[in-house]
């Protein structure tokens, strides 16, 4: 059963195991074996953190690279979301060492209204920097480009599927 990590989770407490749980903008969700988490991404970044041994995983939908001290909701900003997702997974594990690895998706530039580094670029860079500082290896990524993404995380395996509009092929990372 997926569990809310920040009180904003969309799934109800009686959501059936295995039914995809939608993670909205700025939200974080965590789940156990049998759960599937999903989110839609444009310039935001989806951060999947999973522990294959414990079969637990979290998905954060990160909107901006830096909270600048605001930090609410914690899933919205890279600096707070990484920490919050790790803490939520630690709570779900109930103690002991976590063996987390990460997968990233998103960070697209869908509109050409920005020059220089885009919010998407900055989001990806910030998350990668924070994961590096936390000692978490990024084992898969599908970032950049000009299209939105539908990111689906299977908690039991850590497999992430990426769907895009106009492409019949599903990417697995």
């Amino acid at each position: 059963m997926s569990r809310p990590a920040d009180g904003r989770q969309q799934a109800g407490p009686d959501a059936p195991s295995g039914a995809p749980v939608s993670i909205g903008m700025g939200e974080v969700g965590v789940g156990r074996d049998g759960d599937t988490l999903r989110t839609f991404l444009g310039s935001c970044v989806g951060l999947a953190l999973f522990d294959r041994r414990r079969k637990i995983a979290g998905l954060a939908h990160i909107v901006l690279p830096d909270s600048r001290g605001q930090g609410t909701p914690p899933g919205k900003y890279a600096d707070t979301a990484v920490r919050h997702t790790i803490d939520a997974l630690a709570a779900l594990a109930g103690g002991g060492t976590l063996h987390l690895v990460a997968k990233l998706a998103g960070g697209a530039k869908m509109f050409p209204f920005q020059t220089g580094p885009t919010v998407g670029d900055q989001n990806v860079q910030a998350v990668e920097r924070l994961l590096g500082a936390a000692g978490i290896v990024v084992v898969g990524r599908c970032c950049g480009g000009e299209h939105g993404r539908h990111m689906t995380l299977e908690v039991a395996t850590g497999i992430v599927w990426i769907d895009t509009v106009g492409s019949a092929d599903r990417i697995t990372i």
Partner: protein
Amino acid sequence: MTTSSSRGAEEVFRRAAARASESLSKWLGRPTTIVIEDVAAFPLDEAATVLGTGTETLCVCAMQVGSHVPGILALAVSDEAGLAMADLLLGRPPGASAAWGEIERSATAETTNIIGCAYLNAVAEGRDDAEPLVPSPPWFVRDYPEAVMESLIVTQMTDDPSVFLTRTTFCIEGTAIRCSLVFVPQSVAAGRPGSGVAP
């Protein structure tokens, strides 16, 4: 978002719709009206889903408008309604536009351009400053609704945390098409066309 700013936005949208109706009628050579049915302001955390959720695609044509109220103006429409609109804009029989090709996108972009310029003119009414009101070229995107809306609103700085959404009807020679006009206000610093908006 205050009630007065929401009312102000509604007034600007209605003036813009009247101007755009005139311009589109001239461009198309046929009577065309754009009717703003209502205007609502949504906080950012709700705005990502107001135009739909899930894997059904949404077509959005967006342009950045620089003025004393800068932001992004976008015409949002479903595939079905958008292609029906393209038929009307291009003077084709209903159902002729089966997919989003270059000409269908171009017709939608030109319509957005006309609406965007009408919006800027409506904003400029009553102002006596000489600040140039410069729109960017319109940009067409067909993608997941949440991904599109997220990408529009993430460019907004955090000092005005609302998105305006209008329910709008296009009526060309008696045929009505439902769509939405979205306005995402930006801070002045972020609102200049071509400027970086990174937080």
